[in-house]
């Protein structure tokens, strides 16, 4: 039993350069029908067919959730990553046919909130773009604090400040501006929820500072997709399918399992949702756990691995797949 992941066959309608690092892609359905509606904060998993390799990367949907004509994502170029963003930037052209997943939301608004306090760093702005549009329709109370490196790299700053001049606050690193979090946390009405999306350091800082100001964990939400890390190749035995595979340097364990034609469940491919959790039947070596899912005890127990982001270093690894 595994939750299904329905797919949508799309055509790339537009590829628009936002700035030196970020490019926006607009997808429409190939069958001419409407896109499913979604909730702000949702992502889609984009399948990239790059020669004989298939990568699946999650990207936050940034378009208006009520707009059923198309979905938009923004991709930040990562020159040292595993190549997914480079593929999107260099190879994907208008008119290309691609496959994306139905929307999945692991960063949804708490609709009970008296106020939504959003903190974005860099490309972490994308889920908020959709959430702000959703709240705009419902007259929701929000405030966005958005930190960017420079004005030139401030994706969507102009449209946000034009649409919501009183609610959007932008901070420029190169002008030595920074979010004054301690002041922000002070005096927010009861029922305020904080959402943070950005680099890991920013997320940790927000959680830590909020805790120190007496904000409980349930009121602080974050989304950090972990890109799968590159690493030393390793080989894995898949017991149920009686196959032995090798996970390449720039390949994730999940991708290697899929490339061998073995079906494995997944949703986020970023170590957050828990769907790909896999039982370890035997091992001689060390796990390199990179996920947010397994507990400390589970890691110590060496009986589980999240193949979307985690790796292994050792002589032998046998999985129940």
């Amino acid at each position, binding site marked *: 039993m595994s939750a299904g992941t329905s797919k949508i066959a799309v055509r790339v309608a537009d590829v628009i350069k936002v700035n030196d690092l970020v490019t926006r892609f607009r997808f429409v359905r190939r069958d001419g029908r409407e896109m499913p509606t979604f909730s702000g904060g*949702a992502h889609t998993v984009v399948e990239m067919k790059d020669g004989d390799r298939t990568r699946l990367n999650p990207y936050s949907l940034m378009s208006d959730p009520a707009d059923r004509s198309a979905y938009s994502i923004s991709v930040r170029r990562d020159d040292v990553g595993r190549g997914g963003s480079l593929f999107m930037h260099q190879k994907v052209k208008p008119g290309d046919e691609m496959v994306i997943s139905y929307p999945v939301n692991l960063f949804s608004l708490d609709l*009970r909130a008296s106020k939504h306090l959003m903190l974005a760093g860099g490309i972490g702005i994308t889920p908020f773009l959709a959430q702000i549009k959703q709240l705009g329709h419902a007259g929701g109370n929000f405030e966005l604090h958005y930190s960017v490196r420079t004005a030139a790299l401030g994706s969507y700053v102009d449209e946000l400040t034009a649409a919501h001049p009183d609610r959007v606050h932008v901070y420029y690193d190169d002008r030595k501006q920074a979010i004054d979090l301690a002041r922000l946390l002070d005096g927010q009405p009861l029922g305020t929820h904080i959402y943070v999306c950005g680099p890991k350091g920013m997320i940790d800082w927000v959680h830590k500072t909020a805790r120190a100001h007496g904000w409980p964990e349930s009121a602080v939400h974050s989304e950090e997709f972990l890109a799968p890390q590159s690493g030393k190749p390793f080989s894995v035995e898949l017991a149920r399918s009686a196959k032995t595979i090798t996970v390449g340097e720039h390949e994730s364990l999940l991708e290697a399992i899929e490339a061998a034609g073995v079906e494995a469940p997944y949703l986020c491919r970023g170590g957050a949702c*828990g769907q790909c959790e896999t039982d370890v039947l035997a091992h001689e070596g060390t796990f390199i756990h990179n996920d947010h899912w397994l507990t400390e005890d589970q890691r110590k127990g060496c009986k589980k691995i999240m193949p979307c982001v985690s790796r292994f270093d050792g002589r032998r690894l046998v999985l129940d797949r």
Partner: protein
Amino acid sequence: MTIQFNDETFTGDYTFRNSPRAIRRFPFPFHEDSYMYAVNLEPHLPGPKGSAFEHRFDVDEHYLSEMKDRARVLADDPLRCQSLPHMDLAGWDTLELIMTSKAEDYPDLFELHRDGDRWRWINRPMGIDDTFTFLDKTTLPYGPLEYITRQTQGDYAILDQRENDLWMDAGMVTTQADWSLDFDIGMSFMQWHAPVPLAHQLGVFDRALKFLLNLQQGAPVRRLNWTMTVNPNLDTSPENYHKWGPEKTTLTPENVGQKQHLRVELQTLWRLPRSNAMLFPIRGYLIRLEDIVTVPKWGRRLHRVLRDLPVELATYKGFIRNRPMIVEYLSQFDDGAPTSPGCFPD
């Protein structure tokens, strides 16, 4: 397809009946000769033509009478339909899902015409033709959840997803197997399932919750649940327990075949797109024991299941006091022959 709608009651004189066609399509829940809890979820894909699983929201011969019964229960107790303030958007999701599904699946009965946010909804069996503005509840006579579920068979719970849990924060509940929406609204998944015996220890709820948290848009799932009810009473609520409870003492060996009903719930679960909440329709079907045994496989199997059910479950499902009489009645229809696997008649 034209459905001949019954004119029948679920209270007082209890004129509810299943036609031969309704008996044949009854969603019999036991796929083997014994029963224990399991996370028996499967994709909610279209089932065999004519079955209760053919369409996303089944409409059958009891539709109009069930809607009349719902209106009666709500007039008596408006707390049976409630929605916490943050669940409005999920209510609209529900209205949209049901209207679009029914208009596609039963074009002869329902029509939906959308012009942007201006929607026109035609429900032919109930004689409704309303035009309203989507997402503007001042244009409907009730909130979106109440509006559409006064026109749709089955109970509805809407579960908000937060903090890695599901919270029952809205619902329309008038045909329940002895639980109270008014009491349970706002509860987490484990809290509202707290009174269920045995299943917690089996880990059933842990596994079910983990699965449901990852339920995908466009990939609904279903399961069957069941209980036993004396008389075809849809509203076996705790609120009215002191009114229907005494009916359990009216069973005799002579009338048990007519009065004792198997109640089956076709439960489906849907990720709602706009709110990221989950819709949990619980569609109840009732059938007399004497109608069940017209399908020999069902008669044999129900006898074995009820005879061997653990005491805790027979107590929780509310028929422990009448079990000997029910089992005695059913034993006449069990010749000990083996039964074929699966739920459908041979």
